[in-house]
């Protein structure tokens, strides 16, 4: 079952064309790793899927709901505000620099959206939060504030915050790039666990080993194009593309 279908996505910032005709699918339960050099458009792609940016043209369908398609002139035609919000509810996003709410405790970071967006009761949302914190190994931190936590702990809270709204697809935008190697391991372990539970995920990452070992599919992007889209084995071991080989040789 297709959880996400993207067709012919194009996006420019002024004269700078960042996404040039991007198409790909994500199946249920799959982990898709997107790799590529800085400036290749990986993060922009993620931001277009999560509605933090708008595509100029192309089609995005998430869990069967159309977020955007082309009009007769080939320009992006977005769904209504209500439909866009409904599409957004299928997605969770984990940021590179966490973006926790610093004035809220760990508990409230995880419960606030459940209560104000989903309308869950305080008790129900705290129960969800405690389960997730336990899973993240942070049961003793529910009353702490983000500034009292290490980077790895903050990122785990932000994963819990995203999971609390039970998204169908969880997206990660370079989740370990702000962390040292030791803390990176913490986060990758969590993502690995989620993968074993068949959570559908899209992970933009520079961790090649992780992409190789955990992902079901790997996309290699360069200069706004998808150069490779295949299994880790196909991309890492069997690619004949010069650009792919040159990029992977650096790792």
């Amino acid at each position, binding site marked *: 079952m297709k959880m996400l279908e993207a067709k012919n996505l194009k996006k420019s910032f002024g004269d700078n064309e960042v996404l040039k005709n991007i198409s790909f699918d994500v199946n249920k339960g799959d982990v898709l790793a997107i790799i590529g050099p800085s400036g290749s458009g990986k993060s922009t792609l993620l931001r277009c899927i*999560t*509605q*933090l940016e708008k595509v100029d043209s192309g089609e995005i369908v998430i869990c069967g709901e159309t977020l955007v398609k082309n009009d007769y002139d080939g320009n992006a035609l977005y769904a209504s505000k209500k439909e866009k*919000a409904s599409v*957004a*509810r299928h*997605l*969770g*996003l984990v*940021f590179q*620099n966490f*973006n*926790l*709410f*610093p*004035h809220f405790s760990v508990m409230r970071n995880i419960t*606030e*959206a459940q209560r*104000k*967006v*989903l309308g869950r009761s305080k008790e129900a949302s705290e129960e969800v939060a405690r389960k997730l914190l336990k899973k993240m190994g942070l049961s003793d931190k529910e009353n702490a*504030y*983000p*500034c009292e936590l290490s980077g790895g702990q903050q990122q785990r809270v*932000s994963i819990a*915050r*995203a999971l609390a*709204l039970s998204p169908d697809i969880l997206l990660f935008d370079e989740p370990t790039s702000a962390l040292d190697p030791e803390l990176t391991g913490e986060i990758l372990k969590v993502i690995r666990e989620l993968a074993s539970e068949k959570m559908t995920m899209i992970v933009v990452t520079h961790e090649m080993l992780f992409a190789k070992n955990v992902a079901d599919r790997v996309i290699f992007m360069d200069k706004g194009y998808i150069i490779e889209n295949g299994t880790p084995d196909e991309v890492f071991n069997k690619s004949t593309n010069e650009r792919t080989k040159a990029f992977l040789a650096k790792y």
Partner: protein
Amino acid sequence: MTLQSIVTQLGGGMLKTVLLFFSTLIIALPLGLLVSFARMSNAHLFSKKFKPLRLLAQVYISVMRGTPLMLQIMVVYFGPYYLFGIKISSSYQIYAAIIAFAINYAAYFAEIYRGGIESMPKGQYEAAKILGFTKAQTFFRIILPQVMKRILPSITNEVITLVKDTSLAFVIAYAEMFTMAKRIAAKETSMLPFVAAGIFYYVFNLIVAIVMNRIEKKMSYYK
């Protein structure tokens, strides 16, 4: 003439100073937020460059900051008579003083709010959007509380200035404390009322500083 009798006579003036002080804050703090919204508004007419709301706020802030508060108080008080021929009674004094102070301070607060709001990292808005918060929820639950913490020192500055600025209400003979001190000093040919007034302003501001410091400490549970 003893200090005690001066203080007793100044007492009524003190109450009026305090009344003016709190009324100004109660109106100017929210009004300033509205003005800062207008100042940052992207609503445009005819062309993308013509933003009437923003322009209006810019002119308002420019005039309020660019002309003396004393003059503004006089305009608000005497304006209705000279412009529209409305007869003004002395009971209008307090309202004129509060209106003039509130619209003047709102302009300063607006710029402080704007600085605070614009200093917020984009990631906070993005995280809120991804989680599905509405724009109003995002602003009031996530952005504004953090902005308040950031701008508190600047607000404290303005509040302390306000305490002293209340003495400017003497131009419309609003009987706040400084006006009273001047009257008593003239009648008794004594400097003592001014000394007492000075002490009063100092103590008032000391209390303001202590209170603001407490609030700042209360907000320092996070970074």
